[in-house]
């Protein structure tokens, strides 16, 4: 999925999926930066069956075709432009990255990474020196060198290109070629999440260097398989628009670990339901996200193995702090106790148990459970209690009106909760919220809106009263300044609820201005405490996608899909094999 752009792209993907189907889609990918390898531990597997395919007794075999399915076609797989799930999916098979993520979310040089070793970070945390392997080659036989890396970063940073990479590299002051296989990045400030910026595909300078930056988008590189020189284990050999992509193992691939699977067919279905039917029939071998509502049916069919555990996504209720969105300019969510009351009133555990069928974990802060930045008990946990909610509301001055709905200063506590139409999970959650809040005297009107219209008219400009939405985290790094800092108000930023908290604004900056993970951990603990007390969001839960795999696909235990990672549904696909 999305590459470097932070959380918004996650939102895009999530919600798009939600728009079209029932569940929410997959992925997130590496991007934004961090310092030391962020030891993001994979969330613990939930109670859901974790039916990992047993390797065939006689071990891996070479050859064969795997058919992957998806429900949307690519836009452009040029790594300078990739900004959507489908393009990211195809790109990650055909392009090698400088670094990859291991199962724990740590940045690491794998056999199939372009870099030979972890970057050398200077004492002051400002320079990152990356050493490339000297065996790496493009699919046309040209060597991959420091020139390609420099070209990619400089073109991505150039505003004229309009590349989404700009947000990953805007803190890079210079990128220089030291020698053919060494590149030095110099940052303009210490920026801990930067390491994740290096989980990045590179484009061939020898193919693109004469293309004007403004013409990169209309250039055939990235949309014409014949003109797209690649660097990964598979080559992009055919694209039938709206139908399929064919990726063939590159016989000249430079890596020491070669792919077992000879051909990948990436098939595009009209929607997720059709995809689910296809995998049950055996027409395809792999589905990245089975809608929550269909997981049981797929399990019952018995032919598809399902891996399901919480991933890098979390759902929340976002309050809007801009009074302009309310009648008479009276912001209903100004009171901290009011927000805390809502957190108490909402039955989050009930949602996890009944709607997510247990595949989810409660959250109290914007950090995924069991990751190094998880503040644990430092964040306030709001247990489900209508009594506590009522007490807090009373303390904040709300009294029951004639119709039972709370009133304060002549204003009824009635608001609209917006979410995107077509997402069945969110519909159910919205209904629970409506009922829960009604129980404490708050009237909620859930409103489902078409995704495109919603983003355009409500989310981007910050015009709503409250949202029900999710973030899909692009990177295991905990930095979330762009969502919660008042530096990022609409329309330029992602703090669409106009939330301002000066203490938090500074804490986010402190959090990325050191590369010492222990120091960062303390800072994020403080963030967790502050944000869970002040509650710009009611953090609901981390949830997951169900990955389904047909009986032809095999992997060793250490190479099985990892739902908690971006592209984790294809984790170590280079080592998978298929049997007939």
């Amino acid at each position: 999925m999305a590459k470097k752009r932070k959380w918004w792209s996650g939102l895009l993907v999530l919600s798009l999926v939600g728009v079209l189907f029932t569940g929410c889609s997959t992925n997130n990918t590496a991007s934004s930066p961090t310092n030391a390898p962020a030891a993001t531990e994979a969330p613990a597997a939930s109670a859901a069956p974790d039916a990992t395919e047993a390797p065939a007794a006689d071990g891996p075999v070479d050859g064969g075709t795997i058919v992957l399915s998806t429900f949307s076609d690519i836009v452009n797989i040029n790594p300078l432009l990739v900004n959507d799930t489908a393009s990211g999916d195809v790109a990650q098979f055909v392009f090698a990255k400088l670094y990859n993520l291991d199962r724990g979310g740590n940045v690491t040089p794998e056999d199939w990474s372009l870099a030979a070793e972890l970057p050398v970070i200077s004492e002051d945390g400002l320079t990152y020196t990356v050493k490339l392997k000297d065996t790496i080659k493009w699919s046309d036989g040209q060597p991959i060198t420091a020139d390609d890396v420099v070209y990619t970063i400089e073109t991505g940073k150039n505003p004229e290109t309009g590349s989404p990479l700009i947000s990953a590299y805007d803190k890079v002051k210079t990128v220089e070629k030291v020698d053919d296989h060494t590149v030095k990045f110099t940052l303009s400030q210490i920026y801990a999440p930067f390491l994740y910026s290096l989980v990045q595909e590179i484009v061939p300078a020898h193919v693109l260097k004469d293309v004007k930056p403004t013409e990169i988008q209309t250039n055939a590189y990235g949309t014409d398989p014949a003109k797209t020189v690649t660097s990964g284990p598979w080559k992009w050999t055919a694209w039938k628009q709206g139908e399929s992509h064919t990726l063939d193992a590159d016989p000249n691939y430079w890596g020491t670990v070669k792919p077992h699977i000879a051909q990948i067919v990436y098939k595009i279905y009209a929607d997720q339901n059709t995809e689910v039917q296809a995998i049950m029939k055996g027409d395809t071998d792999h589905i990245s996200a089975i809608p929550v509502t269909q997981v049981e049916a797929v399990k019952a069919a018995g032919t598809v193995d399902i891996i399901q555990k919480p991933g890098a996504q979390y759902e929340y209720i976002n309050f809007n702090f801009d009074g302009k969105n309310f009648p008479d300019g009276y912001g209903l969510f100004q009171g901290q106790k009011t927000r805390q009351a809502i957190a108490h009133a909402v039955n989050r555990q009930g949602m996890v148990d009944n709607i997510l069928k247990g595949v989810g974990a409660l959250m109290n802060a914007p950090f995924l459970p069991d990751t190094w930045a998880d503040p644990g008990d430092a964040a306030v946990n709001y247990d489900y209690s209508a009594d506590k909610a009522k007490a807090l509301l009373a303390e904040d001055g709300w009294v029951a009106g004639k119709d039972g709905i709370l009133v304060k200063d002549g204003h009824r506590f009635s608001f609209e909760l917006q979410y995107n139409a077509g997402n069945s999970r969110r519909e159910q959650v919205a209904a629970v919220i409506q009922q829960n809040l009604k129980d404490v005297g708050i009237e909620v009107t859930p409103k489902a809106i078409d995704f495109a219209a919603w983003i355009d008219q409500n989310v981007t400009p910050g015009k709503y009263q409250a949202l029900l939405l999710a973030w899909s985290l692009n990177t295991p790094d905990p930095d979330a300044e762009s969502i919660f800092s008042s530096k990022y108000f609409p329309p330029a930023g992602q703090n669409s609820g106009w939330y301002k908290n000066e203490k938090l604004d500074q804490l986010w900056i402190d959090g990325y201005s050191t590369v010492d993970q222990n120091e960062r951990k303390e800072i994020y603990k403080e963030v967790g405490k502050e944000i869970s007390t002040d509650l710009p969001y009611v953090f609901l839960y981390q949830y997951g996608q169900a990955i389904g795999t047909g009986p032809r696909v095999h992997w060793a235990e250490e190479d099985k899909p990892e739902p908690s990672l971006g592209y984790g549904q294809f984790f170590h696909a280079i080592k998978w094999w298929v049997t007939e």
Partner: protein
Amino acid sequence: MTEYLIRRVLQSVLVIFLITILTFLLIHAAPGGPTQVMLSPGLTPEIFEQQAKNLGLDQPIPVQYVRWIGDLLQGDLGYTFKNHIPISDLLWPRIGNTVILMGAAWLVSLLIAIPWGIYNSTKVYGLSDQTASFISYLGFAMPTFWFGILLQQQLSLKLDWFPLSDMYTRGKEGNIGDLFMHLVLPITVLALGFLASYMKYARASMLEVLDQDYIRTARAKGVKERKVIFRHALRNALIPIITILGLDLPMLVGGAALTENVFNWPGMGRWFVEMAGAREYSALMAVTIVTAVMVVIGNLLADILYVVVDPRVKLGKQGGKAA
């Protein structure tokens, strides 16, 4: 007739021109317009603007329209905004695929509906007529996507008689037998819908004709029933059916998006929905125009067939119909 045709064609060109303007404006007025949707909201406004500029989307709407219509007049349908693929590369193969599917469904339903409808008109409320009535109600009432999924579940997933979806099995592209197998289920779904209406029209139209004086006269004269039906009644009964067929023609191109979605058929209908979601207005305009042209042709054909089938219909100088 020639003058009439020329006038109709000119009118149609004007209509199509107006449709282009209207569609262009409507699509631009829709929330989450093309730039908003094609460009990820994750980008900063600067990148957003730069991308729009690189693609010419920063130009005023009239300028964009004029540029587009200029290209169109030269036979160039333009490019998709998202990935700069020529629309014509995408459009024509899909039209072909849809025509195969819809054409086959249309033909099958006509071949069943018209003889059956006519037969039923001679045996009103008989077993056959009641069965047909039941099927018609089913056809009208059953949502196509639901019926499609039902067929997939039973005949494909459970019994494995037919392929689940797609146009060909992978590796068998172009194989007619394989195509036939893939056509059976979607045709069944589509034909049920067509069948329902065509059968009703055929039956009603025939009943109306059978009630006419000249039929009674023929019968009174002792003309054999078979001859009454096929020589005297049928020809007149076909006229309203032909009108319906003419009006249905654009549908053959436009496709049935839901059925195409359910069966993953790579046709126009599905593509149109996809492009609408992506606010790819060059593609939407192309589809609109192709469909508008088909509507015009369908209307013209219906009128011409009128003349062919019923010699009583003459086209007057004013373009009206004098019976």
